[in-house]
């Protein structure tokens, strides 16, 4: 069995889906320029000591990559709709090879989102030490794992007519509770809740670019636990997904 050929065509399919590309990559970018371009000279955003273009670059990178990962579910729901998932079940394709292809396609989209937003930030004068860029990118990629598993799970549980609201609403809620749009502060219910969510640590991963500090142990644990739970859910959802849609 040659999983590489299968994965290669899966990536090619993702790259050729122009409309998906346009909306998935275009919106965070557009959003970024609308907010940050007119305020490119704000060097101390809201008393944080951070320039506004930098603040929103990391915020939208965490949001854009999260959406890119969860959107895997949209493509899977569409494949189920045309009976393709059932077709795959009567081939020897392993669960592992299937997941690898879906995961890599999702990471490819997230990677492109990162490159585009970093480029957009740089075009508005964002400059960071090389170590910060690297640490931020590495942690973001790790923090995206639970969202990839979430996307696959939703794709196999929800039909194509309701997957849009499910992934859009889910991503918005997780972004909101994770502190993507405004700081959660350092106490209170939302802060306590946020600390338990993968989206909070994704935002913190992106903030590594600003602060230079990585996650505390708690961040690693929360991401690891969510990754494990959602991966199990994804495997379960895929294995039971053999019915006619």
């Amino acid at each position: 069995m040659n999983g590489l050929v299968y994965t290669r065509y899966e990536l090619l399919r993702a790259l050729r889906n122009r409309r998906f590309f346009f909306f998935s990559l275009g919106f965070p970018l557009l959003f970024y320029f609308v907010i940050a371009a007119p305020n490119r000279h704000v060097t101390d955003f809201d008393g944080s000591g951070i320039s506004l273009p930098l603040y929103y670059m990391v915020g939208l990178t965490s949001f854009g990559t999260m959406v890119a990962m969860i959107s895997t579910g949209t493509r899977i729901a569409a494949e189920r709709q045309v009976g393709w998932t059932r077709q795959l079940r009567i081939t020897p394709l392993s669960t592992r090879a299937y997941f690898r292809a879906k995961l890599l396609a999702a990471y490819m989209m997230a990677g492109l989102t990162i490159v585009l937003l970093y480029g957009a930030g740089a075009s508005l004068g964002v400059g960071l030490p090389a170590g910060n860029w690297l640490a931020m990118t590495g942690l973001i990629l790790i923090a995206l794992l639970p969202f990839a598993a979430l996307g696959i799970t939703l794709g196999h549980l929800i039909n194509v007519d309701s997957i849009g609201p499910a992934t859009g609403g889910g991503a918005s809620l997780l972004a909101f509770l994770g502190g993507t749009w405004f700081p959660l502060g350092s106490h209170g219910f939302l802060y306590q809740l946020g600390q338990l969510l993968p989206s909070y640590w994704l935002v913190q991963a992106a903030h590594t670019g600003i602060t230079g500090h990585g996650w505390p142990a708690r961040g690693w644990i929360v991401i690891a636990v969510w990754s494990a739970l959602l991966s199990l859910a994804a495997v379960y959802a895929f294995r039971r997904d053999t019915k006619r849609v």
Partner: protein
Amino acid sequence: MTGTGIRLSRLSKSFRSPEGPVHAVRAIDVSIERGEAVALLGPNGAGKSTTIDMLLGLQPPDSGDVSLFGHTPREAVHRGLVGAMLQTGSLIQYLSVRELLKMMASVYPSPLGVEAVLSQTGLEAIAARRTQKLSGGETQRVRFALALLSDPDLLVLDEPTVAMDVEARHEFWNSMRAFAARGKTVVFATHYLEEADQNADRVVLMAHGRVVADGPPTEIKARVGSRTIRATLPDADPGELAALAGVARAERRGEAVVLSCADSDQAIRALLERYPAARDIEIAGAGLEDAFLALTADPDTDTDADAPPPALAP
């Protein structure tokens, strides 16, 4: 590899529905030898698709057992022994026909060459076309090509010609027979008696989740091939009509009468002799539905007369 073919033993499957449980498949036993081409014939809701789903391991049976060449369905699929064209389904987008076949060939242990499959299924001319630009018939041919990719020992086709026009159907069955001629086992579901007659060595007739007849196509045709005569005849008495030579049953529907015939040639002569005023006469092959209703109403074939009426399989 063992020489055993396909064994379905006491296979049952029910679904929940708002009206109570639906017994889609009721303890059927079917044995198919290697190299046979078998049609699963029956009206919608007879349990054909559910049987095929269980045969392929897509749905677990409630009870009973499936063995494909001595393997479970999952093992057989894993070894690339099974190719299938499911009833509903289209193709994933953003790949050409050739790319899609290459992608799927890569998951099999010893696939046929993609170019060979393209030529066998007559797809060379559209091999470079994107899957989303194909017509319904072309899509079906690509799905057939996907089923052949692994060079399977068993080919399973669930109502494969639904989206095809007459010519496409003809070509499709030619390709299928060419495949079967290589000693392969073929199981296909259809609700067309003619398709079963022309392309199968053997017909398994299903109704209400049961096997109601199993034999060569000629035998099955004789059992379900009765005809009906319909004529406008306002004054005739159904009792007298039923007594005509060749007529099994007579029924009044408004101005018209409908005669179910054991021998329609004899019946039409008798009808016109006795009732010269009969007009608007139509002679039609009985729908399979009617034939199956007749078959399943027979107490010998239906031991479960109190069972709820069959619902359409999902």
